[in-house]
């Protein structure tokens, strides 16, 4: 399945949007945290997991989704949220802990919920696999359209929840796609020290479903495979497991000294940064001119600026809001 020119540009724009957004977040995150780095300080406290380098996975998959489709994302959710169309202002405001945030500051960066585009995430490894099955089941029971995509990391693929969900999805032929972002690391533990097989696509056979591995962090290849899997799910043929080779350009979270990385790894990764690569390819393929892409990049920067400004300008919720929204009727 080849992306149209529009789809390519959409992918590029969302990759850039995600990157620019995180570049801003990264800077702001350090505000108030120098000279002494204390997570609790600054306008954005808490853990911060950046997704830079992994944007191709999010856009290659989400290019096939509409708002009615569902995504369950991970502790590293920005690229997925952006590609799924989560409102960037409300998302930024949530990360700033503001009243205008997606959940008024209760969730933060690991708990972004936007029901208008059926987006959810979680801080527990592989926790989204089951809910994705549930959304898919709900659509089946209601006779409503929509697929569910569960993103997870290659480290998460060793968690029991993932396997139970694969079996359930396969057994009930649910429209679910499991997408593993294989960035080679689970915090400091290399995939080869955690996973008994080099590639998780071989695990699909254990559930009688198709499995794919996509090399090279290539947005078009991801688009292709994901498109087929999603079409298959929409046609009622059940789930697919896809693992994608991707790269985590940053540390596991901000503050990670990354001393576990072999020497030279980071440099090599930056040389393969997917965003300049895609830019060059778009131009080489005649899909866009430098000017087109400059315009896209400028628009992305502007969108990010607006979102960050919105977040900065927004007020904090009253502290007593901590006590509300525990139950639905409150």
């Amino acid at each position: 399945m080849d992306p149209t020119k529009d789809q390519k540009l959409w992918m590029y724009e969302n990759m850039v949007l995600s990157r620019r957004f995180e570049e801003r977040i990264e800077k702001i995150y350090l505000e108030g945290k120098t000279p002494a780095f204390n997570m609790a300080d600054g306008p954005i406290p808490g853990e911060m997991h950046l997704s830079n380098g992994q944007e191709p996975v999010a856009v290659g998959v989400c290019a096939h989704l509409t708002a009615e489709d569902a995504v369950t994302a991970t502790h590293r959710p920005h690229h997925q949220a952006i590609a799924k169309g989560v409102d960037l202002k409300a998302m930024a405001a949530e990360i700033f802990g503001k009243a205008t945030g997606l959940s008024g500051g209760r969730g933060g960066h690991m708990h972004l919920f936007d029901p208008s585009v059926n987006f959810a995430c979680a801080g527990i490894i592989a926790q989204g696999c089951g809910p994705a099955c549930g959304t898919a089941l709900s659509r089946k029971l209601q006779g409503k359209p929509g697929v569910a995509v569960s993103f997870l990391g290659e480290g998460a693929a060793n968690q029991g929840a993932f396997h139970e969900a694969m079996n359930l999805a396969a057994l009930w032929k649910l429209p679910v796609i499991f997408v593993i972002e294989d960035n080679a690391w689970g915090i400091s533990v290399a995939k080869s020290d955690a996973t008994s097989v080099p590639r998780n696509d071989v695990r699909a056979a254990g559930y009688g479903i198709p499995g794919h591995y996509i090399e090279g962090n290539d947005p078009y290849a991801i688009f292709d495979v994901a498109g087929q899997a999603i079409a298959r799910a929409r046609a009622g043929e059940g789930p697919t497991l896809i693992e994608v080779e991707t790269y985590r350009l940053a540390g596991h979270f901000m503050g990670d000294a990354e001393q576990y990385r072999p020497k030279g790894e980071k440099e090599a990764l930056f040389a393969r940064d997917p965003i300049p690569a895609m830019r060059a390819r778009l131009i080489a393929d005649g899909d866009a001119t430098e000017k087109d892409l400059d315009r896209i990049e400028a628009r992305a920067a502007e969108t990010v600026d607006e979102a960050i400004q919105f977040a900065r300008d927004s007020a904090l919720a009253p502290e007593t809001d901590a006590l509300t929204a525990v139950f639905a009727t409150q």
Partner: protein
Amino acid sequence: MLDTQTNERRLTIARAMAEAIQQEMQADERVFVMGEDIGALGGVFGNTRGLVDEFGRERVRDTPISETAFISAAVGAAMDGMRPVVELMFVDFFGVCFDAIYNLMAKNTYFSGGNCAVPMVLMTSTGGGYSDAGQHSQCLYGTFAHLPGMKVVSPSNAYDAKGLMTAAMRDDSPVVYMFHKGLQGMGWLGTEEGAIVDTPETGYTVEIGKARVVREGKDVTLVGLAMGVHNALKAADKLAEEGVSAEVVDLVSLVPLDRETVLNSVAKTGRLIVVDEDYHSYGVSGEIIASVCEHDVSKLKAAPKRVTYPDVPIPYARHMEQFCLPNPDKIVAAYKAM
């Protein structure tokens, strides 16, 4: 039609639960049931009997033995507009799936700032007394009630069982519905006659978060839930023979906890005994006593007491288990030691 036609609809808790689910499934397309052996078998404890015949295997779904998968799937379905009722066969199995329960089901409402509701019921069996040993006999009331984000109820009789189940299914928040095996009215688990009561055929709700004085008295307040209520009522009978008038409070709901009803009763009697089949320490009994004492310690004529399960795993041998379980005699003895 007439709810007052008593003695004609004495149901077991198992039947009352199944009827509540049935009626709600008839009324609301969004309700469906998932769990192990809840289809053809009708639930190991009988509380889904007949449902698969009426509603089919799509809406009454047997699941693999994958509690994490199907409970978290219920969360996803609930957030997508359905109203799942899922069964965790024994509460003792919560350890394989508690993340789905307490980190997902219980918290997604909050994490979403109230923008996502998780209207689901998790029903699960509790309790021992039939020698099923340490991985099949626990109550774990305190474990569930301690963690925020889920309502927790436990009926002591069929009337409440039906009304609470209906209320739970209609609630937009997740409700953990804990039913005691010994009260189910399944003969093979023994039968507590006191749990089999008149139960209206037409649907009704019992309010979640309200305790109930099930026997009035003036000398001592006995507080319990589920099986504890029956132990308390029997103890009250025994105490009455000795001229002691015991008031019995059925908590009905642990979250929200109706402290007021307990406080009012203790304000009247001045004495408190908490009866709980859950482990002694860091659980329900401590919370009830603390709630009373922190309110107004001067109301107490004697130090409060508890009759609970000791802090040991549940032994298999019948005489050992019975030695550990709360019973009416222990309650009477506790009163006498006050």
